[in-house]
């Protein structure tokens, strides 16, 4: 009787613990929902004043003028340009570093380089922004004889530094997951190491590598401090790569402090946050889809 009672309480405890843990695990999803909810709560009132298409495609961002104009098209363009340019720099570097770590480097160098990349990932963005401001910007201004060194190129380079660790470490995992047999078969056919990497390993890891690139882009587009300090802050459609831009995160971070509480400007900044959130969410969902596809393809399915 006593034993049975103890077994029962123990079973009840097990069920309780399981459900409690399930709830806490689900909290991440709930938090994501809360983020959406509160972005909408503070952002949607803007659309009593202007329409969604005026907001998204309006070409003038003059939130403090009278009457104010809340068109974020220049901010979206700014974000996209610095992100794309940053990826053009970060993808080759990140991918080559991943190839080096997973296929070529001797064990010692491999360990060191992995630590380097991890430390690079840990570098606070405000420090990179500071570096871009006080070193890269004056240098660029002087060397290329520009009106300002705070421009698209500078911001893209700094963003690339932030995106390289993401791209490199995820690509490395993908390359590492390529079954040994693939490479051995390639060598057995007389292929060189270069041919094996380029024609066998990289194509086999392709979906993992695309995941890496997409997550790198998501990282770059959402990065705030670098673009806030280095992109120059001009809310206009740029005409060249040495123009200043004002990407979405920079605009939010720079103006939220001054925007009067619950004003149109305040709501417009939250609405910009909604746009930013859904862009990165889309990137993440695509990456998630790709990485799941890539998990399922083992040596059996190819």
């Amino acid at each position: 009787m006593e034993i049975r009672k103890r077994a029962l309480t123990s079973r009840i405890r097990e069920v309780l613990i399981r459900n409690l843990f399930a709830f806490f695990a689900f909290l991440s999803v709930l938090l994501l929902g809360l983020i959406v909810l509160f972005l909408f709560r503070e952002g949607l009132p803007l659309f009593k004043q202007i329409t969604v298409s005026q907001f998204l495609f309006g070409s003038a961002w003059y939130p403090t003028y009278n009457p104010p104009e809340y068109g974020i098209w220049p901010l979206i363009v700014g974000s996209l340009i610095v992100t794309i340019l940053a990826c053009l720099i970060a993808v080759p570097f990140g991918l080559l570093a991943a190839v080096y770590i997973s296929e070529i480097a001797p064990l010692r160098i491999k360990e060191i380089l992995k630590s380097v990349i991890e430390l690079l990932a840990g570098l606070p963005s405000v420090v990179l922004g500071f570096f871009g401001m006080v070193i890269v910007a004056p240098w660029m201004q002087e060397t290329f004889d520009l009106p300002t060194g705070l421009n698209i190129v500078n911001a893209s380079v700094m963003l690339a530094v932030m995106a390289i660790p993401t791209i490199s470490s995820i690509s490395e995992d993908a390359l590492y997951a390529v079954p040994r047999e693939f490479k051995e078969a390639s060598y057995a056919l007389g292929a060189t190491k270069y041919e094996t990497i380029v024609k066998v390993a990289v194509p086999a890891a392709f979906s993992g590598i695309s995941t890496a690139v997409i997550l790198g882009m998501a990282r770059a587009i959402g990065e705030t401090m670098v673009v806030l300090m280095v992109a120059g802050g001009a809310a206009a459609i740029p005409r060249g790569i040495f123009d200043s831009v004002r990407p979405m995160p920079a605009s939010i971070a720079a103006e939220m402090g001054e925007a009067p509480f619950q004003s149109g400007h305040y709501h417009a900044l939250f609405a910009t946050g909604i746009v930013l959130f859904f862009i990165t969410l889309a990137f993440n969902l695509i990456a998630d889809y790709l990485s799941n596809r890539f998990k399922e393809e083992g040596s059996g399915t190819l």
Partner: protein
Amino acid sequence: MKAETQASFMKWRYFRQGLFFGVVRLSALIITLALLGIIAFLVVNGWKAVTWGFLTLPPTDSMTKGGIMPAIVGTFYLTVGAICVALPLGVVSAIYLTEYAKQGLFIRIIRVGVNCLAGVPSVVFGLFGLGFFVVFLHFGSSILAGSLTLGILILPTIIGAAEEALKAVPQTFREASLALGVSKWRTISRIVLPSALPGILTGAILGVGRAAGETAPIMFTAAAFFTASLPKSIFDEVMALPYHIYVLATAGTHIEQTRPLQYGTALVLIALVLGIDLVAIVIRSMVRRKKRW
């Protein structure tokens, strides 16, 4: 003739390989140099500014002189707060994901949720913290609001690290314990968790490093330009190192004059963050080497 073209083709293939390896090594070298360059630049310019007084005194003369002590204290509070929020939640989530959950829609949703949470831009966390903690829950701009925001930000990092640590515990440990008639919860709390502890610790340390360096999430939720005194409760605003750098570098009227302070603050921040990361990396490699199974 034919043998000759074949030989030259082989030569070309090896030349191409050598070229490729050169490019690969070069890019690895450039990445390393970028990290070292940034650190060296801050050390060279900043080390003179970092004196005992700089670390222990508050700013004076409207932030053009003096030290950064309140910012160090503020960053410490925010970081400790963040880890207090994220560590328990993260470990419990990871236990559920690795030990209890079975494949299915529920777990699929949780995984997608965690991945998406990890991808939310830091400034959006700032907006959320402002809308939810500061305004809706009336915490005001405070240590509490900032810590909670940072805690949510690092939650996915902690979940990921804890999950990896739990997965690394051999299945035989669990089986041996269960075979002795030990309940599942006891198996987890007495066998699995202690074995995974070093890995979880590494994740927690990395999370601390991440939280200490973030600026955008605390801009609207906790950080102040300047506070006359140290915080007395968790409802006070604080100064923080990353925000202090940003403010000095962009918003002052004496930007050039305060350069040494900026360099000094940046140096202290990266020494702190990279030091924390390095500790985590060292612990992890030690654990891997000493692994008993």
